[in-house]
């Protein structure tokens, strides 16, 4: 942890309780703490929906329309990774909305825990970019609605220090496998990102990822990388601080790390690897037994609004699903954020993960954990 940056953050008044808990949550200390909050909220009978999401998506800026209508924020519960969230839901935790990514939909639907979302109840739905939700597995059996309302989209790629990392040739996934910088590489801890990025590095086509050869090839590149890795974490705060201090010269991150570090004037670039980045679309699904569905629809509408999108894109650097948000930024801004006026430009230029079975997911996660532990 970087003391000068913590002190200056405290001076600026930006060192928040949120940033601190976010770090804890991201390293898997979720079940211990967040167990209490939403249950207390329910007991008070506020009638607010509980939004189960990533740390950083629980900020007022994303829920302005909701606050205007209901006077206060919805309730939040935070997970470190969506799979943790699903496990909690399956063990009886009651939330209204949860925030997985597009590739998870078929597998999550098979749990029977979710209900389709009636898009006619969302006033902003007409502005939602169709490319982001028109996937067969998102529309089938959804009674004309969708299973998941798209919210954010972006890339998983490499954030590297332009002053510390000596780039030879083109940007490529090789940056994260560069032996010159052993011990100064950061990696994301969930297989949802790391496994697919390693598949790109290993040259495994995504439609063949469910084969024994693919498992072997991807495991081999991840094993080769392990001695170079400083730490595996999903805590973006830790990764950002390590990059800012020079403890790490490059790390696998999402868009927001590069954007936040650039705000802090750290010389970094969000790489556009020649093999293509991993691209993703995430959004919200509604639980079958949602305790407060009406409030949940208001939350979704607020999330889809232009004001929420302006914050998501401007401050976090993620794409938003409302087409009108893109009109607020000029081409230069969007390019700097590694976004584009047509999401397809970005999403199709990279690789999008393909839905897999629960068995594949279990095998992948088990293997990735083994590799991280050194086997």
């Amino acid at each position, binding site marked *: *942890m*970087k*003391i*000068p940056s*913590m002190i200056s953050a405290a001076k600026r008044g930006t060192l928040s309780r949120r940033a*601190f808990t976010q770090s*804890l949550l991201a*390293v*898997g*200390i*979720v*079940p*211990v703490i967040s167990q209490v909050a939403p249950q207390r909220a329910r007991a008070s009978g506020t009638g607010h929906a509980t939004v189960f999401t990533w740390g950083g998506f629980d900020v007022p800026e994303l829920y302005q329309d909701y606050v205007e209508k209901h006077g206060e924020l919805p309730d939040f519960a935070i997970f*470190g*990774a969506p*799979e*943790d969230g*699903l*496990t909690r839901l*399956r063990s009886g935790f009651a939330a209204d909305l949860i925030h997985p990514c597009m590739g998870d939909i078929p597998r999550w639907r*098979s*749990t029977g825990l979710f209900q389709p979302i009636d898009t006619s109840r969302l006033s902003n739905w007409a502005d939602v970019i169709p490319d982001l939700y028109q996937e067969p597995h998102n529309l089938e059996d959804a009674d004309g609605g969708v299973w998941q309302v798209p919210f954010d989209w972006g890339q998983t790629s490499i954030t590297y220090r332009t002053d510390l990392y000596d780039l030879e040739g083109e940007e490529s996934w090789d940056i994260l496998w560069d032996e010159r910088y052993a*011990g100064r590489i950061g990696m994301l801890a*969930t*297989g949802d990102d790391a496994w697919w990025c390693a598949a790109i590095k290993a040259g495994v086509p995504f439609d063949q990822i469910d084969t024994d050869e693919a498992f072997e090839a991807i495991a081999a590149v991840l094993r080769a990388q*392990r001695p170079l*890795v*400083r*730490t*595996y974490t999903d805590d973006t705060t830790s990764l950002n601080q*390590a990059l800012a*201090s*020079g*403890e790490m010269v490059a790390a696998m991150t999402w868009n927001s790390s590069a954007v936040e570090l650039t705000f802090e004037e750290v010389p970094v670039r969000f790489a556009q690897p020649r093999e293509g980045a991993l691209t993703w679309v995430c959004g919200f699904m509604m639980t079958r037994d949602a305790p407060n569905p009406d409030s949940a629809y208001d939350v979704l509408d607020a999330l889809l609004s232009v004001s929420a999108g302006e914050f998501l894109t401007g401050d976090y650097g993620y794409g938003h699903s409302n087409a009108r948000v893109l009109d607020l930024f000029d081409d230069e801004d969007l390019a700097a954020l590694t976004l584009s006026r047509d999401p397809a430009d970005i999403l199709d230029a990279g690789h999008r993960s393909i839905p897999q*079975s*629960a*068995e594949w*997911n*279990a095998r992948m*996660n*088990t293997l990735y*954990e*083994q590799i*991280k*532990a*050194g*086997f």
Partner: protein
Amino acid sequence: MRHESLRGLLLLTPALVILGVTVAVPFLFMGAMSLWTQIGFDYADDWSLRNFTAILTEPLYTTLLLRSLGMAVAATFVTVVLAYPMAYFLAFHVRSNKLIWLIIITLPFWTSYLLRVFAWRVILGYEGVINSGLMELGLIGEPLQFLLYSRTAVIITLAHAWAAFAFLPIYVSLEKIDKSVLEASADLGEPPLMRFFRVVLPLSMPGVIAGTFLMFIPTVGDYVTPALVGGPDAAMIGNLIQLQFGTVNNWPMGAALAITMIVAITLVGLMFLALMYGLRRWAR
């Protein structure tokens, strides 16, 4: 007599009910689950020992288990050795305001466990207190990398975070020692060092043993500390168990790992007791 035993039972009932509901029943359920198999999102209750066979044969599980036991032993040893002199000082050399001393020594425990672990990140970090101090003094050219994200970091953090659990039982058993026994030993011509080894140490052993157990048992399964300061080479069995119930989504394997851990802790505990018993007999 019958009346009294009935009253005893009645007094015990609340504790027994709570113990049954919160420990025995979940434990039985966990035992049953450890014999199942995870298939996708469902369990096959095919009652097999498959999970346990995997734990005993696959190097990942045995390595992490042995590593956790080793790290907990190290942390416990360091803590007991450091806590003993503190407790000794407080029990024999502090005459007034003992309460204030006790409060000062246990002060770190007034903050949350997570905060204490986080504080060590600030101390051991790349731009942390130790590294920036050494750089300032010109002793090192660039920050020491091995401080954070290592097994040493986990052992240091555990030793600090759990110190009071070792300190308090040792202090209580030292405090209880009848001072006239020490005087008698001095009167009989025992030099101070021998007096410590032949009188004080044996009489305080119950506290040392209690402190060792109180510290060793929870640290084996700790997952917060290795998650925050551990790094790839310091993962412990607790991290693996937590993953089984989260991302990896294999609850039967998680249950089997937890049971294996309990058995391993029991075995190590029994070995420690046997060692202590043997030492006592040898000392006589």
